[in-house]
């Protein structure tokens, strides 16, 4: 599999390590109401879709950036890759 790194161009997936579902970026607020339940869902429960999946890959043997890769779990086709930083900032409501 080749991952289209937004800064470095196509890179072999072997240079990366895999973490899992990109929802791991959304760490719950530990002080909020119902935090225990929110953390259970965050740490342990997964959508695990058959089809398009957004997931975190770490360019460990490259520039050590975290990417959010969009990939089809039925075909292994990679549909795109973004810097996880950009995704996280966009989720927080725009770059700071």
């Amino acid at each position, binding site marked *: *599999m080749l991952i289209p790194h937004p800064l470095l161009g196509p890179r072999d*997936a*072997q240079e990366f*390590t*895999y*973490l*899992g*579902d990109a929802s791991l970026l959304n760490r719950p607020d530990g002080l909020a109401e119902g935090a225990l339940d929110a953390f*259970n*869902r965050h*740490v*342990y*429960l*997964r*959508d*695990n*879709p*058959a089809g398009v*999946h957004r*997931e975190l890959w770490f360019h460990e043997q490259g520039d050590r950036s975290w990417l959010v890769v969009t*990939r089809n*779990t*039925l*075909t*292994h086709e990679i549909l795109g890759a973004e810097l996880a930083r950009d995704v996280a900032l966009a989720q927080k409501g725009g770059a700071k």
Partner: protein
Amino acid sequence: MRFSGFRVLKEALTGHHGWKPLWRNPEPQPAYDYVIVGGGGGGLSTAYHLAKVFQGKRIAVLEKGWLGSGNIGRNTTIIRSNYLLPGNEPFYEFSMKLWENMEQEFNFNAMVSQRGILNLIHTDGQRDAYRRRGNAMLLAGADAELLDREQVRTMYPWLNFDNARFPIKGGLLQRRAGTARHDGVAWGYARGADLLGVDIIQNCEVTGFRIEAGKVLGVETTRGYIGAKKVGVAVAGSSSRVMQMAGLRLPIESHVLQAFVSEGLKPVVDGVITFGAGHFYVSQSDKGGLVFGGDIDGYNSYAQRGNLPVIEEVAEGGLALMPAIGRARLLRVWGGIMDMSMDGSPIIDRTPVDGLYFNGGWCYGGFKATPASGYCFAHLLATDRPHETARFMRLDRFERGYVIDEKGMGAQPNLH
């Protein structure tokens, strides 16, 4: 129809015209007491034990494709009970005991062969860990022997004992472990269940659950609605997809694991050898092919096929351990979808939906569990209480902090 030596002789002398199909192909009834979703090893074993041990009546097994077309037909056939943790080891030893008697019990040749499994040791730390594991196995009633380097050399003189990185220093041997004919296991349970009146309905995909007021009433299928008092789901790699139809999110990711077989060779590996440090394990089939494998590919997948980097890695592991196989050719590579749970251990439990039960999260170790998985799931379905050996395999154990994490890897399925 019972199999016996006399029967084989009689059929041989009369032109083999008397053999009948091993199971019926019934039309689905409008309703059953128990509907088992998934006609693989787990589902068939569940139906068999439900009918045989717990005298369940009106049982159906619904299978999307053909019987045994999932992981029961795609694994590397190893049976063993060499686990460490008290939440796991008694269960796997219970399974091992069922393996030892299953062929007589269901009158079918599953080619169970207790040829022994050897886990190789390379360091003092690993020896300590395996000694502890061996003791845990003995405490649960299993067998275990710690071997030194020379004892391993007597068994397998052609292993690479002086590998610079991983020299072999000994091994943990479980003699009662071994292999079984995986398809034979599925067929044996299917035939046994069928003889006890279980309807095995193939090409019948479950497309939804009918749930009212938090209670399951039946399942929607491609062959119409089927009512059920209780529904048990045992669908391995498809667990998340099926349970999602009941509104549940599971602590499971689906990953692909590849397996390999070489061309047929003269007998050389008479047991099972695992080279954990090199991510490689091997046994030899009765046809002579080396059956081997390694780790999962490591990313979510439903593709039933993996990628080349893992093939290379497994081949490297094999060659490091057994340089003699360097010229053997690889015959086939295939993949199966593993329901990797968040702690690497399985789940056999009720769900928040009344009447809906779940069996899954077997990771890459479901085959050895086939008998006990079915027995314990049948126990749960019939009595609404967990079987004694499966009482830790709860769905809510993650939330409660009672994970069964053999490897101590945390909630990271691709590391289990």
